[in-house]
């Protein structure tokens, strides 16, 4: 039973993994195409990193910024993975 449900669970994921990967990738690529948005995302990424780095040591790659373009409104999503022990001091 658990074997079957394992397979089922794994199957369920592959299309949503594809969707998530595409959304992150395209948010980047669309930015690169449109000068305005690209500057915005790059600038946001840089400044958000600076603020976070003042307080916590985070990996550049652990910060995901994505913009979902919608017809009515767009959504800016910032996802920061913070390490387990928050020392409050900057570790470099």
């Amino acid at each position, binding site marked *: 039973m658990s074997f079957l449900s394992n397979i089922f669970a794994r*199957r369920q994921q*592959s*299309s*949503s993994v594809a969707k998530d990967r*595409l959304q992150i990738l395209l948010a980047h*690529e669309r930015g690169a195409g449109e000068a305005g948005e690209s500057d915005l995302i790059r600038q946001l990424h840089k400044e958000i990193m600076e603020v976070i780095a003042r307080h916590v040591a985070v990996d550049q790659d652990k910060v995901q910024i994505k913009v979902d373009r919608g017809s009515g409104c767009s959504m800016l999503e910032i996802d920061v993975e913070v390490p387990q022990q928050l020392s409050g001091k900057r570790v470099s």
Partner: protein
Amino acid sequence: MAKVLVVTSGKGGVGKTTSTAALGAALAQSGQNVVVVDFDVGLRNLDLVMGAERRVVFDLINVVQGDARLSQALIRDKRCETLSILPASQTRDKDALTSEGVARVMDELREKFDWVICDSPAGIERGAQLAMYHADMAVIVTNPEVSSVRDSDRIIGLLDSKTQKAEQGEKVEKHLLLTRYDPARAARKEMLSVEDVLEILSIPLLGIVPESEDVLKSSNVGAPVTLAAPTSLPARAYFEAARRLSGEKLEVSVPVEKRGFFDWLFKRDA
């Protein structure tokens, strides 16, 4: 008023040529005058898929360069008299297509036909950009697969920036045609669903063409699937897509063979 439609995708092998032939034939079967134009210079295949490969005398490049008249290069389909094909050249250099020459030929085609359907080469280079430049409408052929969706997104960006309409501050009307779709796999979440692709690309859905043996069988015998197997699932999808292109408001659903539980399960409202 003639409409110029480009069938494009970025990625190769997703079904541009099949869809050009099928949509062109479906529109022609409804009585409208249609020409399908192969822009894939060097790798022409539209003539082969449509069974006209042995009737090619002159091609698009001959006409663009003024070596032949348009009427000499156009091939009328033997099964459907309102359908014509303008083949691409197989031997010549792709740089032989000049923007001015293409513009002149497109103007001439607009006068003769109701629909001018341009089969774009794969890629995002000059050939693809020439094929889309004069378009009023675009059909973006996409497979429910990551690389195809990504490339479609690039092509949508080009349609919004590198076309005559875009240069004039207007928009090319864009439509998504999802091909090789397998509703069962999408239901098992093994394949991006219609909703997933629509959410990512955010352009209106023209149709869903299911993965089907009939597509290969039709190309084997050199006929658009709407002529070779008009009652097959893909043909039905293309007929409906053609009606939507002509302005009819029809709900999009995945065509399914059997009525019953699966029909209910896979029906899409998008």
